[in-house]
C-alpha cells in the first residue's frame, strides 16, 4: 500500500474519530448498558417481583387497562420474558412525554411499581440522545456513519493486522496505548463493523428515505402497509364497543407461532367497536425482528390476519435489525454483546487518549480542550449513569414526576462532572472523578438494600439472579474505576514527593 493512501486514511481516521469521539463514546456506553435493559428495568422497579407466567401478566395488564384507561387510543404491551414482566404503555396527555407506563407481573392487579423509564432510558438516549424527533436520531445516525468511516480507515492504515493481532505491550507510553486501541479494535472487529452498520439500518426511514420516496412518493400509508403488513390498521368507527376476552386471542396467536412466545400486544382503539388487537411474536425466538404477527377484531376476537415475514429483502432488514438490538440472544451471547460493547467503548476512549499522546502537551487550545473533554466524557458519563440509578433509589417511590426527575438528575450530574473536568487539571481530574465513580458503583448495592430491603444476601438465598447479577456488575465496575483511579494518581507527576517536598505542579 502506498504511503500516500496511508497518510490520507490516517488523517481521515484521526480527525473523524476526534470530532465524533465523545458523542460516540456516549452512544456506545449507553448502548452497551442497554443490552441488559430488561434487568435494569427490573432492578429499578423492585416492587415488581417478576413472579409467574408472562401470559398471565398480559391478562392482568389488560384487565387493569380496561377499567383504568378505557378511552385512550391505544394500549401497547411489551412482554419482557427475562423478568416475567409486562410493561404497558398508554397515552396520557398530562405526562411529560405524552404517555405513561404501568408494569405488571402475574400477581399484579393494580400497578404500584415506582414510575421510571428504567433500562429504556439508556436505550432511548442511545438512539435519540433524548433530543426531539427526528434530530436526535439523525445526529446519532450521522455519528454512526462517521464511526463506520473511522473503522474502515482504521483497518486500511493497520498494516500488520494479523502480525499484531495478539500484541499488547502495556508500557504506559504511546506504544502501549496504540496497542490497546488496536487490540480492542481488532479482536472484536466483526462485532464493531456489524453493530455500527446494523445501528444505522433501522433508522433509514428518518435518515435515508429516498428509496421509499422514489417508489411511493408521498403515499406513506401504502408504504407503511406494504412494509409492515402485520400492523393491520383500521380507522375507529366512533361507536363504543367492548373488547373481547384476551385469553383466547393469546392462545390462538401462540398456536400460529408454533408454540412461540408472546412479545408484544398492541390494542388500537380499545373502547371502540372497531378495535384491533395485534399480537407479535417475542423477538427472543428468532434472529429477525418482528418476524410474526397475528391480528384480531377487538370486540369479537375473530382472526383478521396473520403474517410471517418471508420476503428476502424485508427479512434481511429484519435480521439486521435483530442483530443490533440482540433480543434474540441467549445468556452467553448477551454477555458477549456486553463485553464487545465495552471493547468498542475502549476503542473510542483509547483513541481519544492517543490523539493527546501523539502530540506534545501544552500546545494550544485544542490540546487543552481535548484533554478535558476526554475526562468529562469517559468518566463523566459513567458517573451520570450511576447517578441515574442512585436517583431511582433515593427519590421516594410515590414521588410524582420521578421518571422525568431521574433523567434530569442524569444530565445535571454529567454537566457537573464536565464542569469539574474543565476546571481541574486533567491528570488530577482523571483520578478524582474515577474515584467518585468507583464509590458510586461500590456503595450503590448497599444503599439499594437500605432503601428497598432487597439486598445481596437475600438475593443469594432467594436465588434472585437479577439482583445478584446487577450487584456483582456494580462491584466489578467499582473495581475497574478504582484501578483507573489508582493508575491515574500514580501517573500524576505532581503528586510525587521529591526530597524537598511534593513536586511543583
Amino acid at each position, binding site marked *: 500500500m502506498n*504511503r*500516500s*493512501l*496511508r*497518510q*490520507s*486514511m*490516517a*488523517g*481521515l*481516521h*484521526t480527525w473523524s474519530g476526534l470530532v465524533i469521539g465523545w458523542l460516540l463514546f456516549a452512544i456506545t456506553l449507553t448502548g452497551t448498558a442497554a443490552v441488559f435493559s430488561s434487568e435494569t428495568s427490573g432492578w429499578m422497579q423492585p416492587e415488581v417481583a417478576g413472579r409467574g407466567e408472562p401470559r398471565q401478566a398480559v391478562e392482568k395488564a389488560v384487565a387493569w387497562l380496561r377499567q383504568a384507561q378505557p378511552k385512550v387510543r391505544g394500549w401497547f404491551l411489551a412482554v419482557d420474558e427475562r423478568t416475567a414482566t409486562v410493561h404497558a404503555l398508554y397515552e396520557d396527555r398530562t405526562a411529560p412525554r405524552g404517555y405513561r407506563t404501568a408494569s405488571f407481573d402475574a400477581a399484579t392487579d393494580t400497578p404500584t411499581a415506582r414510575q421510571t423509564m428504567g433500562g429504556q432510558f439508556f436505550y432511548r438516549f442511545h438512539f435519540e440522545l433524548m433530543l426531539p424527533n427526528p434530530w436526535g436520531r439523525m445526529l446519532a445516525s450521522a455519528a454512526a*456513519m462517521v464511526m*463506520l*468511516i473511522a473503522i*474502515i*480507515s482504521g483497518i*486500511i*492504515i*493497520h*498494516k500488520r493486522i494479523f502480525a499484531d493481532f495478539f500484541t499488547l505491550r502495556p508500557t504506559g507510553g*504511546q*506504544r502501549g496505548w*496504540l496497542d490497546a486501541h488496536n487490540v480492542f479494535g481488532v479482536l472484536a472487529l466483526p462485532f464493531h463493523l456489524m453493530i455500527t*452498520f446494523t445501528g*444505522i*439500518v433501522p433508522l*433509514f426511514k428518518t435518515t*435515508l428515505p*429516498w*428509496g*421509499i*420516496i*422514489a*417508489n*411511493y*412518493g408521498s403515499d406513506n400509508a401504502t*408504504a407503511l402497509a*406494504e*412494509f409492515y403488513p402485520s400492523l393491520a390498521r383500521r380507522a375507529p368507527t366512533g361507536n363504543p364497543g367492548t373488547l373481547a376476552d384476551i385469553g383466547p386471542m393469546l392462545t390462538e396467536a401462540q398456536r400460529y407461532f408454533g408454540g412461540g412466545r408472546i412479545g408484544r400486544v398492541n390494542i388500537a382503539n380499545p373502547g371502540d367497536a372497531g378495535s384491533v388487537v395485534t399480537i407479535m411474536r417475542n423477538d427472543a425466538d428468532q434472529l429477525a425482528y418482528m418476524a410474526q404477527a397475528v391480528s384480531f377484531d377487538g370486540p369479537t376476537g375473530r382472526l383478521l390476519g396473520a403474517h410471517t415475514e418471508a*420476503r*428476502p*429483502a*424485508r427479512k*434481511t*432488514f429484519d435480521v*439486521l435489525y435483530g442483530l443490533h438490538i440482540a433480543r434474540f440472544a441467549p445468556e452467553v451471547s448477551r454477555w458477549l454483546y456486553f463485553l464487545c460493547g465495552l471493547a468498542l467503548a475502549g476503542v473510542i476512549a483509547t483513541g481519544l487518549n492517543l490523539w493527546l499522546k*501523539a*502530540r506534545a502537551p501544552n500546545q494550544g487550545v485544542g490540546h487543552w480542550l481535548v484533554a478535558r473533554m476526554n475526562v468529562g466524557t469517559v468518566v463523566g458519563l459513567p458517573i451520570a449513569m450511576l447517578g441515574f440509578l442512585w436517583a431511582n433509589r433515593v427519590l421516594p417511590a410515590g414521588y410524582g414526576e420521578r421518571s422525568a426527575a431521574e433523567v434530569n438528575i442524569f444530565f445535571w450530574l454529567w454537566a457537573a462532572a464536565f464542569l469539574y473536568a474543565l476546571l481541574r487539571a486533567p491528570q488530577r481530574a482523571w483520578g478524582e472523578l474515577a474515584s467518585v465513580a468507583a464509590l458510586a458503583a461500590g456503595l450503590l448495592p448497599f444503599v439499594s438494600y437500605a432503601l428497598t430491603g432487597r439486598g445481596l444476601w437475600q438475593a443469594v438465598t432467594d436465588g434472585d439472579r437479577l439482583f445478584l447479577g446487577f450487584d456483582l456488575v456494580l462491584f466489578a465496575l467499582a473495581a475497574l474505576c478504582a484501578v483507573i483511579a489508582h493508575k491515574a494518581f500514580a501517573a500524576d507527576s505532581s503528586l510525587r514527593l521529591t526530597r524537598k517536598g511534593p513536586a511543583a505542579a
Partner: protein
Amino acid sequence: MSVMNAIVHARDRRQAGGRWQRTIALGARIAAASVGGYALAAACAAFLARALPMSRVEAATMATLIALLAMPAAAIWAFATATAGRALGGVVAATLLLGAAAWLLGPPS
C-alpha cells in the same frame, strides 16, 4: 512507530499550492465525503429502488441497504483518490448520473 508518524504528519502530505489551496482542497474532500456522500447515497437508493427487479417494497428495502454501504465507500474514496478535484467531481458526477437514471425510470407502475 510508522503509524504514529503517518498520523502526526498527515498534514505534511506533499501537495501543490500554498496553505490557502490546501485548505480549499481539504474542504472539497470533506464536502465530497459528507454532503456529496449523502447525496450519492440518496441517488443510489432512488435509482436502485426503481431499477431492481423486485416488488416496490422489496426493491426499496434492498436499495436502502446498498445505499447505506455506498456512503462510507464514497467517503473513503473521496479521501483516497489522488486529487481533491477528482473527489468532488467524481461524487457529483456519480450522483447526477444515478439521479438522472432514477428520474428517467420513473416510479414503479
